[in-house]
């Protein structure tokens, strides 16, 4: 059930990735009276469908559509309410060497969610996570049919290093570098680029390369070891209030949860670490119902 809800949220957010740029394009066509001039039959059908759907709700679709821009992964604006990724804030502070209050305000919701719930952006929203989880299914299938892909282990501190070095380089070069390497930003960008101009850039190749490497060389390489966004969320979520807790009386040490955890933590021995993204895979895989989300204050927890 939990996993079903999680997948539903992920798929809904990915759907926004396609819907919002198409709506924006539709708004442009309406405003310039160019709706009948769309090139290509498939696109014509899509825009006709959007048009008839919008006309159901309102007389003047432009009024609604022009106020919705962007995407939840990187930044989104809905009626002057803006929501941004905390990584934007970090990049902006280092890049511009200044503090922009509206950006801080727009990043605040995600910061608060991360402080309360930990790295939930990764587990529940990030489009790359969905891609890589499906990708990991292929990898586990390879295991089943007897091929053994390599599993190179890196140090988990690489992502903090990347966050640090990226910030310093942003400061020195004066270019927002995180946008080049942060997968949610890349996916967002390529989607907009494809819908608007019908072509994609190198970002798609980079994403495909990460997926290939993960199948063949190292399990969940990017999110475990390298993603600067994941690093930032881990740091912010260090003292999170909602954690996964194991009931020692119910657990019979079957280690199913350890196999299920894609981030290679050890739920069977209560080792979740600050990087756990609260995806809840271990909870749903446990047959004895020994794991659950619990609310607790970080300083009240007993260390095991």
């Amino acid at each position, binding site marked *: 059930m939990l996993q079903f809800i999680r997948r539903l949220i992920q798929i809904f957010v990915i759907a926004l990735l396609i819907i919002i*740029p198409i709506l*924006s394009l539709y*708004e*442009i066509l309406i*405003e*310039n009276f*160019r709706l009948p*001039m*769309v*090139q*290509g039959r498939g*696109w014509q059908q899509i825009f006709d469908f959007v048009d008839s759907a919008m006309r159901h709700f309102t007389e003047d679709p432009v009024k609604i559509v022009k106020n919705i*821009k*962007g995407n939840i992964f*990187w*930044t989104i*604006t809905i009626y002057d309410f*803006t929501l*941004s990724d905390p990584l*934007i804030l970090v*990049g*902006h502070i280092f*890049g*511009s*060497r200044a503090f922009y209050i*509206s*950006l801080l305000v*727009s990043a605040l919701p995600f910061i608060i969610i991360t402080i309360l719930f930990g790295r939930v952006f990764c587990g529940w929203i990030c489009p790359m996570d969905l891609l890589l989880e499906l990708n990991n299914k292929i990898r586990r299938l*390879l295991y089943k049919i*007897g*091929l*053994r*892909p*390599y599993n190179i282990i890196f140090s988990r501190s690489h992502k903090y290093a990347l966050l640090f070095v990226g910030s310093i380089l942003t400061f020195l070069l*004066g*270019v*927002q570098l995180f*946008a*080049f390497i942060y997968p949610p*930003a890349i996916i*967002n*960008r390529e989607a*907009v*680029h494809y*819908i*608007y*101009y*019908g*072509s*994609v*850039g*190198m970002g*798609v*190749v980079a994403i*495909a*390369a990460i997926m*290939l*490497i993960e199948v*063949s*060389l190292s399990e969940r390489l990017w999110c475990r070891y390298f993603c600067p966004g994941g690093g930032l969320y881990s740091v912010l979520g260090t003292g999170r209030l909602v954690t996964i807790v194991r009931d020692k009386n119910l657990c019979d040490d079957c280690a199913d949860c350890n196999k299920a955890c894609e981030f290679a933590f050890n739920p069977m021995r209560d080792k979740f670490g600050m990087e756990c993204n609260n995806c809840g895979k271990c909870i749903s895989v446990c047959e004895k119902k020994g794991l659950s989300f619990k609310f607790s204050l970080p300083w009240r927890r007993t260390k095991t």
Partner: protein
Amino acid sequence: MENISRRNFFRKIGGGVITASGISSFALLLNFGTSYKFKPLYHVSKKIERMKGGGEDFLLRPPGAQSEEDFLSKCIKCYLCLEACPIQAIKIAGRDKGKAADTPYIIAENTGCDLCFNRENMRCNHVCPTDALMKMNSDDKNKVLEDMKMGAVLNMGIAVLDKRICYAWTNVSVCWACYEICPYKSKAITTGLRNIPTVHPEWCVGCGLCVEICPVPQKAIVILPPGTKMEAGGASSDIIREEGGKQWSFEVDKTESRAVPDTVNPEDVEQKMKEKEGGDSWKPSEKVDIMKF
């Protein structure tokens, strides 16, 4: 026994193939100079032109951008401005632009920015989540227009007229298209008695509408970086014909201008583009050095 060794053998081969594909994808990642273009489905602007001056690229940024360094250090490449622009003036810089790769810019030769004249606010800088584009709204549009003159916040570039190829100046035909379209008509461009245009840099904001509309294939009027007004000597925007100095060149693709889809049906455009690729019919001049400073 034989069975097991055969399975081991296949395992090794399979592992090797998978490892090789992983390594080759690393190689792909390193091959960063090229960009992979797919066949366009819905295309507004296929070709990205470039304007080069003295070896460095000048990219015309959306209104609200301050200096180039300032813009680069703040723009997070989210493309909200691109989604918001109602006339699709904003395009994306390719990888060949180096530091400026993936940032939004305007190709004046294709589509100039109309400064959102008949809209409630400038959409692009209104949605920009960072201060890469400074917000410029006002209830009183006229007051904004008064404020937006040269030297104030709105300073995208500067229009420079080449008298040697302008139809009006060379008496090829009657033309004051740039004067008619300029948002600062009779301030940034005046025509005088003989209906021959002159640009006044102290008013020009560099929106690029005049470049879009100019009928001369190589464009008799172009946008140069904001600082150029100093070099051109303040009040005068004539091109100073001296040897040496910066060389400007650019390519123009008229078929993808905003004006086309409204007057020509798409099949004609496609036909025209096919002919152009064939190379025998109408062709925009390629990279002509038209000016010297």
